[in-house]
């Protein structure tokens, strides 16, 4: 494979404390040279003139619903990977709550095989904690991990049974994979359609109190301490959870967490007059929660920004609000929403990259997330000040359910490189069937 030279870009590599203009030389899918001084382009090398742009470790999304197998009308591994690379992601973690649940090596292997066919970005499946996500019996974590799962989760559903959760944490220590949890006490959220607050009252919708999440986070901190397990809290949405996680980290518990861009961007008022594109689980919370999440992004409580990319069809959303299905797509808007915090002066560029690349790699122990010599050449090139407008018609995802359609953004992915190969450039995703 020929080499690629990224010339004069602003290299941001949080793991190695690098932030400045560098040249980066890639060969055979690996980073082979990084220098603040200009590197001479080897013969036959492709040169990427990156002056004025950021050259950063490829983004990694810990929380993506690819819908295959079972709901291919919403998304497939292929269309999800297209959406991912268009959003600057070089790796995604595929949630197991597909129609046919990923609770066995068979399904894990199918997802991995589809990902190989797509040949765009890395896909790491997450396996189920419990068989069929039913919350009754443990799925075979050993088989799932040896087939390639990088975490176990019943995402979309909580593990309500505390004894089962405790055993899952204990058992997963055998394989040192994180147990990823969707924290929702179903007795507190029952019948709820959105965050409980002034907006739910105005709209006459049953609210989901913040305690539905916080009470479960509190329970799991206690179980974590007792089991010495490893816990990753998915899509943290409220202040109370942040406070508990911050405190648990301070005490040295092995807990990590992620926040979704919609949760640090919008509050419950975005529901407006029953806009189902603002409906997700956990729900958009109060303005105060949004501020707490932003603070947690800054101070290191949050380890990763993860989209909870949840494709759904038009018919799933064009219904009465309480019947509307939860979730929005997120892969193609994640960087820009993160950049709005950078442009707003809240996040440093380095911290933003940490949250999109380095943090997620560290949390799940994935390759990538840095660009030192020897690192995989998973690279995202970002034009930090480019202005654009979200247009769902141009999404690579098969679904278009987003509240951000028509929103003006600043900051855009210009190129995505996976294992030294350009898979997204000039607004185009590369054809997928080409050989490696």
């Amino acid at each position, binding site marked *: 494979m020929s080499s690629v030279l990224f010339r004069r870009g602003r290299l941001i590599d949080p793991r190695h404390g690098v932030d400045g203009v560098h040249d980066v030389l890639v060969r055979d899918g690996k980073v082979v040279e990084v220098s603040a001084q200009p590197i001479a382009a080897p013969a036959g090398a492709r040169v990427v003139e990156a002056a004025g742009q950021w050259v950063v470790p490829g983004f990694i999304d810990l929380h993506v619903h690819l819908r295959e197998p079972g709901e291919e009308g919403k998304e497939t591994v292929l269309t999800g990977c297209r959406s991912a690379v268009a959003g600057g992601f070089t790796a995604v973690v595929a949630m197991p709550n597909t129609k046919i649940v990923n609770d066995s090596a068979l399904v894990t292997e199918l997802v991995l095989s589809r990902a190989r066919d797509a040949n765009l970005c890395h896909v790491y499946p997450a396996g189920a904690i419990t068989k069929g996500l039913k919350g009754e019996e443990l799925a075979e974590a050993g088989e799932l991990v040896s087939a390639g799962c990088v975490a176990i989760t019943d995402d979309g559903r909580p593990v309500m049974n505390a004894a089962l959760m405790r055993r899952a944490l204990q058992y997963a220590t055998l394989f040192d994979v994180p147990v990823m949890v969707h924290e929702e006490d179903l007795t507190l959220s029952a019948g709820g359609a959105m965050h*409980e607050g*002034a907006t739910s*009252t*105005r709209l006459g919708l049953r609210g989901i109190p913040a305690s539905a999440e916080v009470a479960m986070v509190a329970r799991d901190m206690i179980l974590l301490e007792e089991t010495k397990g490893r816990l990753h809290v998915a899509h943290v949405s409220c202040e109370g959870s942040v406070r508990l996680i911050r405190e648990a980290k301070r005490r040295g518990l092995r807990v990590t967490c992620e926040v979704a861009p919609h949760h640090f961007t919008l509050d419950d008022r975005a529901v407006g*007059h029953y806009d189902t594109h603002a409906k997700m689980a956990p729900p958009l919370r109060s303005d105060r929660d949004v501020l707490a999440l932003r603070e947690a992004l800054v101070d290191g409580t949050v380890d990763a920004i993860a989209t909870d990319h949840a494709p759904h069809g038009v018919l799933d959303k064009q219904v009465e609000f*309480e019947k509307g299905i939860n979730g929005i797509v997120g892969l193609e808007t994640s960087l820009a929403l993160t950049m709005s915090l950078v442009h707003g002066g809240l996040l440093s560029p380095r911290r933003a990259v940490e949250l999109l690349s380095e943090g997620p790699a560290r949390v799940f122990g994935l390759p990538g997330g840095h660009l030192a010599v020897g690192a995989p050449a998973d690279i995202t090139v970002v034009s930090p000040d480019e202005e654009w407008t979200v247009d769902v018609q141009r999404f690579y995802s098969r679904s278009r359910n987003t509240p951000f359609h028509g929103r003006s953004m600043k900051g855009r992915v210009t190129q995505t490189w996976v294992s030294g190969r350009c898979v997204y450039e000039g607004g185009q995703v590369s054809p997928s069937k080409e050989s490696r």
Partner: protein
Amino acid sequence: MRHLLGIEGWRRDELIALLDRALAHLPGGPDASHTLRGRVVANLFFEDSTRTRSSFEVAARGLGADVLNWGLVGSSASKGETLLDTARNIEALGPAVIVIRNRASGAPHLVARHVRCAVVNAGDGAHEHPSQALLDAFTLRRRWGSLDGRTVLIVGDVQHSRVARSNLLCLTALGARVVLCGPPTLIPPGLEEMGGEVTHRLDEVLPQADAVMCLRLQTERMGEAFLPSTREYARLFGLNAARAERMKPEALVLHPGPINRGVELAPGVADGPRSVILEQVANGVAVRRAILEVCAS
């Protein structure tokens, strides 16, 4: 053409104009013209409601409109048709107004976004019931002239009450002070942001009220542990004879119906001199005529 999806979004002057128009529709009033002659009003009721549906039907017929009743039982909705498909099919029949009652909050908004005719909300979930609030305001205005400076106390299950929400918005827009009172489990957060005051102690606020509106206690809520029993509710929040004694002498009692006699309202009070409950029902037709006229025009 205008939708009436809720009181939210209607200004004071618009509400007053509508209520003034309703005066002309009172029995013996000057306006006997059939302003909706040859037009169709479609009643799309997905929830049992004899009172409101009948009121809209009488109102529409009084205006000369043809009325189309599309109910839940035996209709396509029971065969799994989506709300939007049903609404589009009704729209194809060419109504001037679709009057919709649905158990889902926001259902009228969804329909209004996808049809070209006017949509009137006849009650959606726990969201709004604007025609009820307008007829309540109309009833109070006929008694008082103006609502400015008056205190209206709304008592009961505010959490699940669309009547409470619409009345809160409507009465405050018309100048009244609205106090909401009920057990903490049935008072949702943020009512202050909608202009209301909140208390849980009925006996403290009762003497301040110029009118008390008792909400129907939905007995199906008992299964969800919002309350220990109807008996305890009646003891703490029921408007009984003893409490009625402590009201201002001229204070009025309202209820949107149907009443749980002996729970939120004692029979003697419901049928007593303070009660304007049957006036509410009678005024409902005049107010709904005005609503249909304004929305269809």
